[in-house]
């Protein structure tokens, strides 16, 4: 599964992208966040407050209950501030 991080999520995780192989029982965005937060202290810091983390699966906004699989591109970032 390909992960992308933007803005201060990237700063906190310490990388812009990574490829991960979560266990089979990680099937939703919410479960993926819980699992990722346990992978390192940087990940824990980045996902410390899930209420300010937004997610996109294959470049579409996704909520915690959305399904994710090994072939998906999953991005995490803070609320957007463009325009």
């Amino acid at each position: 599964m390909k992960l992308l991080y933007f803005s201060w999520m990237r700063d906190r995780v310490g990388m812009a992208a990574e490829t991960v192989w979560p266990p089979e029982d990680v099937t939703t965005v919410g479960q993926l966040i819980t699992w990722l937060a346990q992978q390192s202290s940087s990940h824990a810091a980045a996902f410390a407050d899930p209420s300010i983390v937004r997610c996109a699966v294959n470049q579409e906004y996704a909520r915690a209950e959305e399904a994710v699989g090994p072939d998906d591109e999953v991005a995490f970032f803070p609320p957007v501030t463009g325009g």
Partner: protein
Amino acid sequence: MIKVQPEDFDVGAELAALRQGRTDVGAVASFIGVVRDVAGPGELSAMTLEHYPGMTERQLAGLEAQALARWPLDRVLIIHRFGRLLPGDQIVLCAATSSHREAAFEACAFLMDWLKTKAPFWKLEEVDGQASWVAAKQDDENAAARWQTPVSKAAKNKT
């Protein structure tokens, strides 16, 4: 039409191109967003706009389609820059053409409200030599939320 680019844009040329070849379109509403040098208590020296290549274009194309479906428009234009920008630099141009001025105005305001809350851009401000990410505004969420209600009857009928 959607453009995501680091380069500046020529507002006059872009708006002229938008109504090129159309003489049945009387209303062109547009909005230009510009980098301000004020950032909280300090003075902003520069700003870097990061974005999510691929998702940005996808979201903006969806936004354009929504506006075209919702109002009686002829064309929609969204240009959003990314990269490092200085105070006074143009960030974004939104425009809508229509034979109804209310539709053009409303669509243009809608595009901006949704850009602010949906388009995957993040601003990194440089103030007094310190770079920090801009926090999202609740005001912007509220502004976008007003478009959840159906389009006003006025906007559908006015010229």
